[in-house]
């Protein structure tokens, strides 16, 4: 175990995979200088500018070229800088990468990792703050990953790079400095579709992912002090998602609260809430509930930005309200 930040963990993961497999390379704007957040810092010294490749400001070409390079047997990691800019490469990601294996009848695979940092962060405003994970979860052929800790960011990025299908890898910008223990074993992978039970509890199940997991963990502490035992589940990957773990937990607690940073309307929380409602109607002691952002773009002013975030207090209130019914 080493203590590392969320951002260092991703750097370690990429470096280990590039050492292990010469087919792995990364491409994106400014990677030679470490990338916009420093996720690639130093890697060019070890791997050189051919495998840590700068790119022009050409998101469609970054993803499109990654698709072609993957079909030809390499394993590109395509950096999008902010998930918002991936919207400049949606045809390449959704019409090409996600469908190639299927529409060509299994003749090819597209093992790419598209890194899309998400989330509200330091007043970045409407075009640098989105969390569109539900979009990708809706697209057949895509894997969707949303790590919440340094250990998961290492283990999941390694799994993503080893995955033979396209992976949309969504790190949360607000978590870059988060520190935590990270396994040293280069063969330690975190599998897709296996949720992590952050905390066990009998009263109410909270399902979350990415940065909101930490807000929920704090809320769970507060609730425990008030005698409400929360079972907190971190999905870690949205496709595949650990339906079995969520259903088992709600079967036990009889209550489901889904907490997401994304816009709640048609967000992935709806999928979880709907699935639970479909399968566990009898077991539910009260209606499922979702917390998420209102359906508004992200404003710049910190005071306004904050007002869109699901706060610990909202989670606590929602949970307590659910316990009353």
């Amino acid at each position, binding site marked *: 175990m080493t203590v590392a930040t969320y951002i260092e963990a991703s750097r370690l993961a990429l470096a280990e995979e590039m050492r292990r497999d010469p087919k792995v*390379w990364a491409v994106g704007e400014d990677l030679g200088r470490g990338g916009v957040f420093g996720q690639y810092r130093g890697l060019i010294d070890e791997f050189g500018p051919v495998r840590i490749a700068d790119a022009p400001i050409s998101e*469609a070409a970054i993803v*499109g*070229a990654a698709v*072609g390079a993957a079909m030809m*047997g390499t394993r*590109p990691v395509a950096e999008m800088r902010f998930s918002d800019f991936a919207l400049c490469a949606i045809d390449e990601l959704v019409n090409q990468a996600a469908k190639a294996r299927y*529409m*060509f009848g299994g003749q090819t695979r597209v093992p790419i990792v598209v890194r899309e940092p998400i989330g509200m962060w330091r007043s970045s405003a409407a075009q640098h703050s989105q969390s569109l994970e539900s979009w990708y979860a809706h697209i057949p052929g895509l894997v969707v990953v949303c790590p919440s800790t340094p250990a998961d960011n290492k283990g999941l990025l390694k799994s993503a790079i080893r995955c033979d299908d396209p992976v949309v890898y969504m790190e949360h910008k607000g978590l870059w400095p988060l520190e935590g223990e990270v396994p040293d074993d280069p063969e330690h992978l975190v599998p897709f579709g296996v949720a992590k039970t952050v905390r066990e509890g009998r009263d109410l199940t909270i399902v979350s992912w990415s940065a909101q997991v930490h807000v929920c963990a704090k809320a769970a502490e507060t609730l425990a002090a008030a005698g409400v035992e929360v079972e907190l589940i971190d999905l870690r990957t949205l496709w595949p998602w650990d339906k079995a773990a969520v259903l088992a937990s709600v079967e036990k607690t009889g209550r489901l609260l889904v907490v997401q940073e994304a816009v709640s309307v048609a967000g992935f929380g709806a999928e979880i809430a709907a699935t639970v409602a479909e399968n566990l109607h009898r077991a539910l002691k009260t209606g499922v509930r979702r917390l998420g952002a209102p359906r508004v773009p992200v404003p710049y002013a910190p005071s306004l930005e904050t007002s869109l975030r699901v706060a610990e207090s909202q989670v606590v209130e929602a949970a307590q309200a659910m316990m009353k019914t």
Partner: protein
Amino acid sequence: MSSRSQSVAALGPAPTNLDVERLSGHHLTMLRIRAFEEAAIRGLQDKVVFGAIHPSIGQEAVAAGVCGHLRRDDVLLSTHRGHGHTLAKGADLNAMMRELFGREGGTSNGKGGSMHIADFSVGMLGANGVVSANIVIAAGAAHALKLQGRDAIVCCIFGDGAINRGPFLEGLNWAKVFDLPVLFVCEDNGFAATTRTRTMTAGEGPSARARSLGIPSVEIDGNDVLAVDEAARDLVPAVRGGAGPRFLHAHTYRLTGHTSMDAAAYRPKEEVEARWRLDPIARVEELLRQAGLSEGAIEAQRRAANAELERAYADALAAPLPDNARAFADVQDVGDPRGEAF
């Protein structure tokens, strides 16, 4: 094959020392493409082929001339109008026909159809339903070849309408910046669906744009298979030799509608008549005659191509439908594709 392609415009003297064997090879390839397109159209009429068919009738010389210089391990990317390119790259004609019929044994076992025709076993990485999308994918395929130090090259064929979409700029810029082995081929048939491309294209067009990106371009008569063959004979080795990306701008004409359902009423009959007189197949046959090939030999090639397609049509018709389980196969390794659906 349409009888109209019999009357051919005067072509002037035949080039001396023609490689008759090579030319006959192109002739056969072009005949096979023509016959394939005609069979596909017939299949659609017979309701055994589905979706949209974009025939390359009249454009066969580009496919034959360019692909004639590609190796099996070279890579080809094509468009919605990709049957000809795919055949010329060496794909199995029967499997292609089965694909159009949506049958087991199709190149993609019926999951792709005409617009996603592909045969990775011969380096044909797919037609594409999205105009211009193949250009950035091609750049990436070439990027991989360079990373792997292989001497194979990528050939990316697209239409004149594709040069107005962003990926054209991004893909050519990428290929040049990374100095990649790609031969870009713009198959300029003058139309983008029902629109005369020039009316929606600023500047001098494909070659000028390529050159502005530092990519040399050669402009040729794409209905003259000899001209295409000669251009490719220079370009393919240059690209393979590390000269970086090259651009070939081939002028041709779409003798049918945009799709087989398009009557193409937006162009005057006279225009089409005149273009039929420049039918590349008629022209190559004229050259073969001038080179001394007998009418019988030419006719024999036609018969061979048509017979092959008759067999392919019958084979496809007799082929089984894909097992329904295929609908859920080859989606991805993880996650249950049935999701929450059932």
